[in-house]
């Protein structure tokens, strides 16, 4: 699979480390969220067959985190964003 890095252009997916569903960016507040919410965040997944937003880390490159939208049935990559941009667009400071 070739991942079109927003800054570095087309890169082999072998340069990246895969983490999982991009919802992992949205960690609940440990002081206010209950154990059930944290359990759901940490262990449960949508695991869709089809488009999946997921986190890839460019370990052998610029060490940026990317949000890659990829089809889990065809392996086609339809969108690549910097995770930083996604977080800022959602109103976070970083």
């Amino acid at each position, binding site marked *: *699979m070739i991942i079109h890095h927003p800054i570095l252009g087309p890169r*082999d*997916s*072998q340069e990246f480390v*895969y*983490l*999982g*569903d991009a919802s992992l960016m949205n960690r609940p507040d440990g002081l206010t969220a209950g*154990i*059930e919410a944290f*359990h*759901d965040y*940490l*262990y*449960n*997944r*949508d*695991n*869709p*067959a089809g488009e*999946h937003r*997921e986190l890839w880390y460019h370990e052998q490159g610029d060490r940026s985190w990317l949000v890659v939208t*990829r089809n*889990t*049935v*065809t*392996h086609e990559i339809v969108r690549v964003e910097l995770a930083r941009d996604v977080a800022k667009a959602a109103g976070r400071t970083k």
Partner: protein
Amino acid sequence: MRYSGLRVVVEALTGHRGWKPVWRDPAPQSHYDFVIVGGGGHGLATAYYLAKEFGKSRIAVLEKGYLGGGNVGRNTTIIRSNYLLDGNEPFYEFSLKLWEGLEQDFNYNAMVSQRGIINLIHTDAQRDAFTRRGNAMIMNGADAELLDREQVRAMYPWLNFDNARFPIKGALMQRRGGTVRHDAVAWGYARGADMRGVDLIQNCEVTGMRIENGRIVGVETTRGFIGAGKVGVAVAGSSSKVMAHAGMRLPIESHVLQAFVSEGLKPFIDGVMTFGAGHFYVSQSDKGGLVFGGDIDGYNSYAQRGNLPVIEDVAEGGMALMPAIGRARLLRTWGGIMDMSMDGSPIIDRTPVDGLYFNGGWCYGGFKATPASGWCFAHLLARDEPHVTARAYRFDRFLKGLMIDEKGQGATPNLH
């Protein structure tokens, strides 16, 4: 029809005109006491043991494709019970004992071959870990032996013992481990279930679940609504898709695992060998092909095919261990979809929906578990309580901190 040596002789003398299809192809009835979703190894075994061991009737197995067309026909056929943790080892040893009696039990030749499995050791620390594992196995009634370097050399003199990175120092051996003809497992269970009145319904995909007042009353399928007293889902690989019909999110990611077969070679590997440090394991089929594999690709996938980097990685592992295979050609590769769970261990449990039961999360170790998985799932469906060897395989173990994490990786499914 019961199979026997005498039957083979009689059929040979009468032109083989007496062989009949080994299961019916019934249309679905409007209601069953037990509906098993998934006509793979685990689903068929569940139906078989429900009928045979737990005396239940009015059972159907619903399969979206054809029987045994999923992972039971796509794996590398290894059986073993070499686990460390208390939640796992009794279950897998129960499974291995069932394998040992399986062919007599269901009167079908599944070619169970206890040719032995070795896990190679490269360092002192690894020997310590495998010694501990072997002791855990023995304490749970399994067999285990620690082999030194010369014992391994006597078995496989052509291995690369002096690899600079991973020199071979010994191995953990389980002689009762081995291989099985995987398709025949599905066929044997299907035939045994059919003979006991189970309806095996193919080309019947579950498209929805009808739940009323917190209780399941049946499933919507491509062949119409089918009412059910209890529904058991055994569709590993597609668990998240099917359980979404009941509004459930699972502690599972679907990943692709590739497997490989070389061209046929003269017999030179008479057992199963794992080279964990090199992400490689191998056995040799009765046709002579090397059957081997390595790690999962590592990203969510429902594609039943992987990508080239893992093929290269596995081939490198094979070459590091056995330079002798360097000129053998790869015949084919394929992929299967794994339910990768959050601790690398399976789930056999009730769900929040009354009458709906779940069996999945087998990661890449489901084949060896087939008999015990079927037995324990049938036990749960029939009696509403877990089998003694499957008590730890609960959904709530993640909430309660009772994970069964053989590899100690935490909630990272692609690393188990």
